[in-house]
């Protein structure tokens, strides 16, 4: 019994991981998750580690199903259909972050994935972004706070794009988002302890900005948001 303890510990961890992955799979099913087989294989390749040495083919099959998906790196930005709000979507290695704001007080951050020409992002309070991309454009729909926006925006290059700053200023939590458009204009909202306000302009070259008297640096968004 005592000698089997470590093995049981390993197997218990493996079982817990398997349960969590199964729950994840059932949750994200239909969300463009094409590789239940790949996940199963990944679990299986660790499972025999406790008893018998796994064959190399198991590990190989774990890699196979979604290996062809090339990771997306792109930024799209522009005005939503009908004006009234600006959207930017920044994708780093398939991890997508989108920001939609009106430059006054309405804003929504979303994050998710960009793969196989499809965008699938979610945000707080059930906000969603679904869409497609390709040919230098991204098209889709954002739903948040009971409102809906549609957009078709073009790919942009630095210094245009999506910037974000998070900081704590005098115990107030500050989150700022800026969209810099190719014509040099900026749209942004800064939220100080959940109260949104128009954002002061950033210096696109350095990201420097002053919020409530505090010097912050807005950084280009790459990958997952630091705080959900």
């Amino acid at each position: 019994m005592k000698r089997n303890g470590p093995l049981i510990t390993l197997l218990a961890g493996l079982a817990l991981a398997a349960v969590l992955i199964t729950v994840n799979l059932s949750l994200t099913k239909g969300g463009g998750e094409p590789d239940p087989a790949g996940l199963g294989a990944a679990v299986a390749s660790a499972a025999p580690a406790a008893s018998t040495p796994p064959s190399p083919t198991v590990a190989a099959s774990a890699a196979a199903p979604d290996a062809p998906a090339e990771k997306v790196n792109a930024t799209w930005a522009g005005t939503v259909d009908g004006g009234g709000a600006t959207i930017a979507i920044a994708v780093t290695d398939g991890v997508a972050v989108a920001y939609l704001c009106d430059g006054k007080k309405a804003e929504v951050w979303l994050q998710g994935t960009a793969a196989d020409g499809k965008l699938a992002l979610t945000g707080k309070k059930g906000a969603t972004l679904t869409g497609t991309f390709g040919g230098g454009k991204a098209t889709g729909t954002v739903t948040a706070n009971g409102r809906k926006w549609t957009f078709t925006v073009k790919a942009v290059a630095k210094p245009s794009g999506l910037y974000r700053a998070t900081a704590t200023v005098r115990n107030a939590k500050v989150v700022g988002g800026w969209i810099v458009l190719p014509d040099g204009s900026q749209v942004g909202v800064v939220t100080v302890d959940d109260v949104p306000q128009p954002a002061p302009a950033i210096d696109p070259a350095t990201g420097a900005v002053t919020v409530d008297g505090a010097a912050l640096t807005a950084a280009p968004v790459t990958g997952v948001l630091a705080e959900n």
Partner: protein
Amino acid sequence: MSDETTRRARVSAAGLYVPLLLGAIVTVTLGVYGSVHTPTGISVNVAGFSGPQTVKVWLASGAALLALVQLVSAFAMWGKFGANTPSWIGPLHRWSGRIAFLLTVPVAVHCLYALGFATYDTRTLAHSLLGCFFFGAFTVKMLSLPKRGLPGWTLPLLGGAVFTLLIGLWLTSSFWYFTTIGVRF
């Protein structure tokens, strides 16, 4: 003389080959999976927290705290605090280790499933590497524990590696979160 020879023959690092190989397979599998799996951005959440990040931050902090218990209880087991080691130190070491390991599993599943192997900056790269190696090192440690005749340095070395990796993971995730975003639930 012959006694000496047999004793020496029995103590050999050869018994580590299989655990090391399996640990390496675990590490490589995690890294490969994290790289090829398209991150979903979402994963199961635990009720009571404001978001998946905060869940992970606190689970990892719990594991890191238990890792400190591991370090102290390991020192006690090896008689570093004097010869009279209380009998409950062994069970304490085993159970705190088990719980710490189980706390890390949901964190790892979320990292791998929702975020993947990331190289955005030094921190995420270090964290990704540490994460893959942590589970490999833990596998080696678990598989080496029941083996007889391993060199005396085996368990301190492996335990130290697992501890160092976990603390590194905590520093590159929870500690970073606490200092960058703030302490929140």
